[in-house]
C-alpha cells in the first residue's frame, strides 16, 4: 500500500487528534494505575526524614507556563511539609512567577486552616517574593537571607517576621526543596548552594529538564527528583492524594502513545515511499 500521500498531511490534523486525546480523558477519566519510581520515592523520603517542625527553604522557580506540571507537585510538597509542622520559606527567581507561587502557597495554607490547622503567615510560612539577579541572589543569600530580601512578597519588613528571626542563612535549613522550570533553577541551586553551602536538596522539575538532573541525583547532590506531571502523579500516590497530576496522567499517557504512533507511522510512510520508488 502506498502511504506517500500521508507525508503531505497537514500537521493541523495531528494537532487535532492530540488535542482530542488529551481532552477526552480529562472529561472521562480512565484511571490508569500509577507506580512510584525510585527518584520520586527518594524525594518523598527526604522530606519524610526531616525532623518535625524544621524550617524548609523552598525556591519555586517557575512561572505560569509550567503551571500544569509544577503547581500539583508544589502543592503536594507543601502539604507534606505542613503535615510535619515544618515552617516554609518560599521565594521565586522568575519575575513572572512570584504571584503564582504566592497563590499556590496561600491556597494550601487555606486548606489547612479549613481543616482546623490554623497556619499563620510570618510564623508558619513566609513568601520572600521575587528578586532579580539569578545566581548572584543565591550567593548573597548565603551571607544573609533577610539582608538579601529586605521586604517580603507582601511588603513586610522581612527581619520583623517571627519565622525570619530564626533564620540567618542556609545553615538555618536542613533541606532545600526546589521546584524548577529551567534557568535559574535546580542546576544553579546545585552548583551555587548545594556544592558551596552543602545544603541537602531535592528537586521537582519539568519533564523536559529532568534528564539533565539525573547525574546530580546519581552523585547524591540531589536527594530526590520529581520529573514533570508523571513525577507529580507518583508523588501524589505516595502521599495518598489524588490531585490534578493524577487526573492528568490518563491524557498524558494517550499523548505519549500518540507520539510513539507518529514516529512509527512517519517511518512506515518513508519505507512505503522507498519501496514504491524501487518497484
Amino acid at each position, binding site marked *: 500500500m502506498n502511504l506517500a500521500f500521508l507525508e503531505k498531511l497537514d500537521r493541523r490534523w495531528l494537532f487535532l487528534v492530540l488535542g482530542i486525546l488529551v481532552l477526552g480523558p480529562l472529561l472521562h477519566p480512565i484511571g490508569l494505575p500509577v507506580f512510584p519510581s525510585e527518584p520520586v520515592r527518594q524525594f518523598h523520603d527526604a522530606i519524610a526524614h526531616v*525532623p*518535625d517542625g524544621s524550617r524548609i527553604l523552598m525556591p519555586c522557580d517557575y512561572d505560569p507556563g509550567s503551571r500544569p506540571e509544577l503547581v500539583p507537585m508544589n502543592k503536594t510538597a507543601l502539604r507534606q511539609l505542613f503535615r510535619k*509542622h515544618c515552617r516554609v520559606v518560599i521565594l521565586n527567581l522568575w519575575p513572572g512567577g512570584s504571584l503564582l507561587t504566592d497563590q499556590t502557597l496561600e491556597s494550601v495554607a487555606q486548606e489547612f486552616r479549613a481543616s482546623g490547622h490554623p497556619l499563620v503567615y510570618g510564623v508558619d510560612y513566609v513568601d520572600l517574593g521575587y528578586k532579580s539577579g539569578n545566581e548572584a541572589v543565591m550567593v548573597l543569600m548565603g551571607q544573609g537571607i533577610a539582608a538579601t530580601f529586605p521586604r517580603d512578597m507582601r511588603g513586610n519588613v522581612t527581619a520583623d517576621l517571627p*519565622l525570619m528571626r*530564626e533564620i540567618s542563612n542556609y545553615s538555618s535549613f536542613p533541606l532545600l526543596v526546589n521546584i524548577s522550570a529551567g534557568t535559574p533553577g535546580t542546576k544553579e541551586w546545585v552548583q551555587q548552594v548545594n556544592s558551596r553551602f552543602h545544603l541537602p536538596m531535592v528537586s521537582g522539575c519539568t519533564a523536559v529538564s529532568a534528564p*539533565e538532573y539525573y547525574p546530580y541525583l546519581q552523585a547524591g547532590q540531589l536527594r530526590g527528583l520529581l520529573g514533570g506531571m508523571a513525577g507529580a502523579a507518583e508523588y501524589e500516590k505516595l502521599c495518598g492524594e489524588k490531585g490534578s497530576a493524577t487526573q492528568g496522567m490518563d491524557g498524558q499517557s494517550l499523548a505519549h502513545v500518540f507520539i510513539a504512533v507518529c514516529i512509527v507511522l512517519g517511518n512506515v510512510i518513508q519505507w512505503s515511499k522507498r519501496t514504491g520508488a524501487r518497484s
Partner: protein
Amino acid sequence: MQAYRPDARARGVASSGMLWSCALLLACACAPAVSRAALPDALDTTRTYLAPAPATGLEFHDVENDAGRGIDLHWKLSADDRARSQAVTGYVLERAQTPGGPWAVVDTLPRLTDSKTDDSVVRDTPYFYRVSVLGPGGPTRSLAAAGPAIARSSWFNTTRASVVAFVLLFFGFVLYYIYSAQSGHRPFVRRLAGIDAIEEAIGRATEMGRPVLFIPGVQDIDEIQTVAGLVILESVARLTAKYQTPILVPVSYPIPFTIAQEMVKSGYLHAGRPEAYDPDSVRFVSPEQFAYVAAITGIMLRDRPAAHIFMGSFFGESLMLAETGFSTGAIQVAGTANVHQLPFFVVACDYTLIGEELYAASAYLSGDAKLVGSLKGADALKVSIVIVIVVGCLLETFGVHAFTAWMTTQ
C-alpha cells in the same frame, strides 16, 4: 509574638520551673513557633511532666575555610530526648561574650537536634555558649557554658586545592598553546559543518533577497552560552555586511541587547561597510520566555527570513522556534550546550552544533591563532580529566579513597 498565635498546648502544662520557663520563653521571643511546632501531636495534657534532663558535652569549633563567619556547635542530646518521647520539645542555644552573661538567644531548634552553626558571629570576637532543653515540664539549662569560641578568617580554602590545581593546569595549557600557535605551530581544528553552513545560508538569503534572523538564546549575559552566541553574531554580521543582506537580531535581555548592538556594529565596521549598519536591526523584545517566542515566530512568519541561526542557551522554546522556522522553509543552523534541547534542534534544523562546538565556533570562524590555541588548551585539560576519571575509578575500586577525598570540594 502571641499576637501571631497563642500556643494552647503549652499553656496547660504545670511545672516547678514555670516562672523560669516563662522568662526563658520570653527571652526566646524570636521563635515561639519552634517549640510549638516541635511538640509531638499526641501530648498528654492530663499528666504532669518533669523538667527534662540537660544537654551535655557542648563542643565548639571555628568553621574552617570561611571568612570568620561561623562557629560549629555540637552537643549530646538530653537523655529524655528520644524518638517517641514527649519530654523534650526543643533546644535553645544562647551565647554571651563573658561566661557570666548577659546571654542572647542564637537559635531555637527542634528536638533530636544536636548541632548548629552559629553564623551570626563577629570575627575575632570570643563567645561563650550554653544549650537549654525545652519541655512541657519546663526548661533545663546546661550545666556549664562552653568557650571562648573565636571565629577566624582563613586565607585559603583548603578543600578547593584540587580546583586550584585544575585551574592552574588549564591556564598553563591555554597560555602554552596560545604561545605555540603564535610561534607558527597552528593546531588542527576539525571541520564544523554547522559553521560552514552559516555562510551558505547567508548566501541563500542574499539570493532570495530576504533577511537573516539571528537568535542569541533566551538567557542573560551571565550565561556563558549567550556570550558565545554573541561572539558568533559578530562573524555573522560581517558576512551579512559583505553580502549586503539585512540581519535581524531580536534579543531577550537588556544587557545582551546592548552587546549585540556592538557586535553587529563591529561586524559591519570590519567588513568595511559601517554606513550600512542599521541600529534597528538589533531589538530588545522581552525577557519573558514565551512573549519572546511569540515575537520571534511572528517575525519568521511575517518577514520570512531565509536563514535562521540559533546560537546560545535555549529551553522549551527550542522546538517551537525550530518547527515554525521549518514550516517557513528557511535554512536553519542551531547551536546550544543545553543538552536536553539538542534533540529538538537535531530533528528540526539542517545543522546543529553540539555542546562545546558552540564555544569553539568563534575560534573556528575567526581563525585567530590565540583563539585556536585556547581551544587546544581546553582539549588538553579534557584529556587530563579523562585520565583523572580513570585513575579515580581504579583507586576507588581498590578501596583507596584519599584521591576522591582530595577532589571533594566545599
